[in-house]
């Protein structure tokens, strides 16, 4: 897979290029969108973004784990974890694009 990594700055740049808002405002909006998603999740609310995917919260009970180095048993405390489920549109566009590229190689 190609090594390039996108960051907030690239998302802000896309908003700047396509909408024409000032750069700093584009960056603030990217931040605001992420913050709204985070605060929903923090309240235990799932976030469903059609044609993108959904973020849900799962409550995990206590279970016994092992320190892989020492083999020692340690309790893993109950916790909340985030699960992301990609939409079919996302899955398809990624798989189609990369399978096609692989076939062309």
């Amino acid at each position: 897979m190609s090594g390039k990594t996108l960051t907030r700055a690239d998302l802000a740049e896309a908003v700047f290029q396509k909408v024409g808002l000032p750069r700093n405002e584009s960056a603030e909006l990217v931040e605001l969108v992420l913050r709204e998603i985070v605060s929903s999740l923090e309240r235990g609310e799932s976030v469903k973004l059609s044609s993108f995917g959904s973020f849900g919260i799962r409550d995990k009970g206590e279970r016994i784990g092992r320190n892989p180095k020492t083999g020692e048993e340690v309790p893993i405390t109950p916790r909340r974890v985030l699960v992301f489920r990609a939409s079919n549109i996302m899955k398809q566009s990624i798989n189609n694009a990369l399978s096609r590229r692989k076939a062309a190689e």
Partner: protein
Amino acid sequence: MIKSELIQRIAAANPHLYQRDVERIINIILDEIIAAMARGERVELRGFGAFTVKHRAARQGRNPRTGDTVFVEDKFVPFFKTGKELRERLNNSEGEGSSSTDFN
């Protein structure tokens, strides 16, 4: 929260923007993430998480209803890994007790 609610919340905080502009901005952000993954790139959003693509090898699968063996082609699947800060926030929000020595 669904996308329309996200749009409303962002629009409420930015009264100088039209709601349809906010909708467009959110779609640009989401589409940009998908487009990057479709190029095989990763998207790393510090404090939030990282979107990456994993390659799954071809395998012999089974039709669970008939038990027939079927060939499943290799595929590329999107994957999200929660960022450290978000993971911690999910566990600290509604109260303490998150320290690992606290059993009850």
